[in-house]
């Protein structure tokens, strides 16, 4: 990681790192929210895509749950530095979810892949963001 001795450059570095995290987080949450909405609006489509046996009555509540989980992450999207404890919990949650999807297997492996990719990416960006923020202080 690069650190600067000047306040202005350090702050810029920290702001850039926060912006990168915010962008990746936004992409992740949008995809996540779309998945949740699809599950609520078109449960049969989601059920067929995941090769689940009908009926698909349980998919709607899961979609609602996904939207709720996405909503919980909005404070992290707004300011990850101030919401670092929720950010850390969310990071751990993503890894846990990825493991669950992996265990579920079959078509859920695509969701597991999505979770793993974003878990690694967001964890790395969060680490960079925290480091840059910390190193912008005296």
């Amino acid at each position, binding site marked *: 990681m690069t650190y600067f001795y000047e306040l202005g450059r350090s702050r810029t570095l920290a702001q850039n790192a926060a912006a990168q995290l915010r962008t990746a987080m936004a992409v992740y949450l949008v995809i996540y929210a779309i998945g949740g909405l699809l599950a609520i609006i078109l449960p049969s489509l989601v059920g067929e895509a995941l090769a689940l046996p009908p009926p698909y009555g349980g998919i709607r509540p899961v979609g609602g749950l996904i939207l709720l989980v996405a909503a919980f992450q909005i404070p992290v999207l707004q300011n990850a530095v101030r919401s670092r404890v929720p950010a850390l919990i969310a990071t751990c949650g993503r890894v846990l979810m990825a493991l669950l999807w992996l265990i579920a297997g079959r078509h859920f492996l695509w969701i597991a892949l999505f979770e793993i990719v974003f878990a690694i990416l967001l964890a790395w960006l969060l680490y960079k963001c925290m480091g840059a923020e*910390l190193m912008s202080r005296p």
Partner: protein
Amino acid sequence: MPVEWYEKPFVAFEKALNRFRPWHAWPFPIALPMLVGIRARMRWSNLFNTERQPATVPSSTPNVRSERTADGSYNDLNVPWMGMAGARFGRNVPLERTFGEAPPRLFEPNPRDVSNRLLARKEFVPVPFLNVFISSWLQFMVHDWLSHGENYRPEEAPPYEIPVQSGDWPVNPMTILRSRPAPAEAGDEDRPAAYKNIETHWWDSSQIYGSSLARQMMIRTDPQTGELCPDGKIGLKPNGHLPLEKEIQEVPDAEGVRFPNLELTGVNGNWWVGLSAMHTLFAREHNSIIDRLKLEYPQASGEWLFQKARLIVAALIAKIHTVEWTPALMNSPEGKIAMRSNWWGLLGEHYARAYGRLNELELVSGIPGSPTEQHAAPYAMTEEFTACYRMHPLMPDEYSFRSYSDDRHIATKSLIDIARRNVPGIYDEVGFDNVLYSLGTSNPGALVLHNYPNQLRMLPEKSGMPNEERLAQGLFTDLAAVDILRDRERGVPRYCEFRRQLGMSAPTNFEELTSNATWRDEIKALYPTVEDVDLLVGTLAETWPTGFGFSDTVFRVFILMASRRLKSDRFFTTDFTPDVYTQAGWDWIQQNTFRSVLTRHCPAVAPHFADVRNIFFVWPKAGPAGAVQ
């Protein structure tokens, strides 16, 4: 009392991973819990009491609950002598390992040879990102914490005689006075010598206010009238500088030496312009705090105002040291978070300022305001801590004074030229703001071998004596040789044993000691085995953790003692409240930093440090037209 329940996993974690590599060789998320584990372990394994029979404690005053006493007593209300001036230094290694070395080992290898061949500055090695405030602040702090006081006079105990080579020193042998140990008490028979700290051990700004009531009254005396300042201020001259001691009354300094014409403050030993600047700034800060308190409490007495301002200054200085000075020397995420969490906890500054403490856990919400805890021994500064703070290489030999407006050269001075009674003359010649600018834009020396200031290796012992006479009598001190000898004399283990006692791995050969091949050969030529290497030499030869300005060995002692200075002190823990400090004082501590102190008292130089992240990083120099480059 065992390690706290929540710290046990950290101790186990550190113990497990330390077998493979030290904390600084691991990535940040692993290094951080290891640091927590190291500190928790050391609090129960590396604190030892030397006090046998508590010192006589003067009777209490009615206000000990909410005011610091002049001599440091009654900080701990159950153990009033703890940390007071005159109490013994503690230890960081078991007492049976701290017997002072006796001849011939005491002189092996010859301290003067170590000074000449390993420590002497060949060429100034700077720390390119730090400024000289680093060294002046360090000395400012050390004067707060400790002083061994007067050594034995030659007529009381024969000085150590160090043979020197012909022409190497004005007289042969070189003599070094013996340390004066604390008088032995009942039960001391089989124990190593202990030494008294003549300053208060606490982080109470005794360097500003003195460690006795008599000294404190002198500081509070108005140099114009000779009377006590009625509103509790520190007596300053009309130009905002400290008065000279002779203008009021000449008294011995902390070392018992009388130096007339030194500026008057709590401790003015080893005085030089950088140290004077710190004292001047914080004397002004004290008076600014009084002005603020007077607005809130117009009816308050001068005594009450003084005592509250003292509390606030001490806390502000502790905060600056914790979250500004130390992180400047430990410029890595691990170093920063270790120190910032000492003050604010892992929840951080924003949370602490917005919501206060979440709970009593220091890890979560910081040490200030958490419960007081002495851990394994009553609070005391330690001999090992003293040894680790031997950081004289930070001092340059030469100082260039320049104008803050255009960087115009004003004067170049040697260290001796800007020391002792020469200080007021420097202010007259250069100006206070220019002195600050010059210190802020100059680099300190690096803590490495071959970087010990040569002027401190031939330091004139007395002022005012013609040099020829001084040479004839050999009245010089090689401070580097003294540093080496003192550690041996006071039983501070040598480097390898010191590391083992701190729970670190020790090098088994010279190759493991340092990665610098030249130094390795030089050390090998002087020391028979790696086990004989002195602590100071080892720590200066060691490879530092990334971003650090000192070795991991001394860092281990710092991480223990930096938190202990806060955690043991009632005024930083249970009584660190707005009730004791006043709401105005509390806010002052929360809102101020060294940057704001400098800005308040020297606004003209503020543009030069406006863009430095840490005030102890080197400031950009002024451009030809006054613009900051």
